[in-house]
């Protein structure tokens, strides 16, 4: 995806380090007790989510967890068995025709008219939406880096190019909310970086991005908040920081780690302390603060070389909360 200036577009410098998505309190996507049964099987179970304006919201779960069903219900493709979905404050069951044009979506593999060119795909959708000028088609083609292949038949595109065209279709009407199901599917590493940058730029412009993805490292890098579902139930919804720091443990490098461990385990707050595979002491702190753990150990004669807050990456959190991504909720 390229950044090509265009006189018809607003332009501005956006250095990567300064990117700070502007999150507001306005809830742009909310599900209330959203439920879907397929016969006896409960695909989505009383799901409550809140996505705020400016969020890049990661929606995670193992295969079959109910992610795509939830997204399809949010887009009016599947009728919920119970509960509701609100987008921009409106229930989509009753106001879908008015609200959904303000939502751009890419669901699973990109669905495209394979017999038409990339540009004609955009024209076909633009015709249905109405009010989309040809210039906007140029803009989105430029944005996803397909201008050079716009006249080629989509059937000849690679998966990554189809994915880009799917994103272009999603952006066609300059939506307020973008719902992307596996947007990095088929993209090469450079394409993934460009997609990440695009997500950030979208949120800088006040848009909200809802992403379902299996690429947890990507989600950790770009998302502000995540929800994890398993077996149709919400396991957790939190900011990335809260989720990866949520265990309140510290990694301590100290001589005589075994002796220090025994001492901590004898404390009312230290039962969970243990040594990791590298022999490092993993311990909770008396008050939850690292300085108090440092003080306790120092007073006991175990002067720590280093104390660092233990963090998990998103992948570890995901696997822990979803029982290695395959089983029951923990």
């Amino acid at each position: 995806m390229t950044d090509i200036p265009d006189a018809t577009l607003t332009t501005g410098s956006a250095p990567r380090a300064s990117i700070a998505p502007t999150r507001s309190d306005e809830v742009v996507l909310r599900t209330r007790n959203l439920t879907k049964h397929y016969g006896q099987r409960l695909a989505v179970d009383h799901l409550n989510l809140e996505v705020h304006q400016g969020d890049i919201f990661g929606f995670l779960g193992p295969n079959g967890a109910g992610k795509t069903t939830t997204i399809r219900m949010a887009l009016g493709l599947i009728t919920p068995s119970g509960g509701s979905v609100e987008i921009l404050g409106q229930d989509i069951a009753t106001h879908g025709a008015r609200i959904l044009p303000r939502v751009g979506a890419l669901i699973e593999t990109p669905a495209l008219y394979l017999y038409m060119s990339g540009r004609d795909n955009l024209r076909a959708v633009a015709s249905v939406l109405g009010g989309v000028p040809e210039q906007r088609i140029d803009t989105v083609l430029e944005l996803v880096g397909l201008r050079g292949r716009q006249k080629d038949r989509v059937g000849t595109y690679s998966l990554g190019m189809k994915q880009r065209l799917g994103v272009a279709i999603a952006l066609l009407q300059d939506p307020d909310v973008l719902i992307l199901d596996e947007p990095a599917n088929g993209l090469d590493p450079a394409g993934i970086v460009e997609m990440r940058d695009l997500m950030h730029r979208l949120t800088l412009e006040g848009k909200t991005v809802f992403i379902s993805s299996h690429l947890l490292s990507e989600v950790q890098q770009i998302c502000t908040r995540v929800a994890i579902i398993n077996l149709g139930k919400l396991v957790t919804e939190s900011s990335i920081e809260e989720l990866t720091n949520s265990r309140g443990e510290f990694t301590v490098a100290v001589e005589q780690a075994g002796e220090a461990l025994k001492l901590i385990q004898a404390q009312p707050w230290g039962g969970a302390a243990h040594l990791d595979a590298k022999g490092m002491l993993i311990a909770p702190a008396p008050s939850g603060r690292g300085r108090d753990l440092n003080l306790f150990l120092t007073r006991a004669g175990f002067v720590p070389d280093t104390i660092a807050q233990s963090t998990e990456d998103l992948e570890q959190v995901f696997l822990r909360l979803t029982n290695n991504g395959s089983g029951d909720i923990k």
Partner: protein
Amino acid sequence: MSTMVAATSARQAQLHSATPSFPGILRGEIFKVSRQWTTWIMLVFLTGILILPYLIMLIAPNAKASLAAAPLPFLTDQVETNLAVLRVFSGFFLLILTARVIGLEYQLGTIRILLARGVGRLQLFSAKLLAIVTFALLILIGGLLLDALLTVVMVAILAGNLNALNALNTTFWSNTWLYIVTIMISMGATILLGAAMNAIGRSQVFGLSASLVWFPADNIGTVIMTLAYRVTHNTFWQNVTGYFLGPILNNMPNYLLPKGGLTIGAFPLVTISNTQGLLVTAAYCVIFAAVAVILTWKRDVQE
């Protein structure tokens, strides 16, 4: 410098105020059909088929004498033959077109792009149906104009002048009009059959296969019913063919034209009234339409 994703505020307002409209959806459907090679290949094929009877007539040994001896019966036979060919082959065209318009949208999964943008299911279905009907009317008008042109050319070649056309009387024009009505009835039933099959199967492959098999199946069905009657001597097997859509559509000229007209294909094995013929056709159309509408409206889109 980085290109901003959003449009400028004026454009943004324009884009945000836009919502799917029926004319826009219809335009989109016609645009998609016009971009399919199959549409143009089928049109070329249909044109070739329509020209074929005229070419055969031009090289027939007694054509010139027949035209000179009895111009009205000659032209009546010729026009009815060509309209019968138009009825049968426009049916194939419409079944394929319906599968491309409705079934392919499901098969490619593109239906979700449209519905996820707030396009109503029945709104989209109606637009698709109207696009198909528009093409059907264009085929009918184009086919009639081609037939008229080829008839004039044929008369000019065979007779050396157009005097034979003076023999065409009001009965000829009335019968021709009624024959055109039978084509329109066939087209309507065919489109609704295709719509129902594609709505059931939600794929071009299923929709096209099921709808293409329908008419051969009930035409061959009359042969099977004949055998069943001969084996059992039970008139049920004959009577049931009075409710077969294909044979009834084949025989429609005999229900509508005062003295009947040229028909192609199997007939019902019993004589049925004009009213029954029309009512059974109408009942099939209502059932096909109901199936298509209910399935489109009520089923989740999993594609």
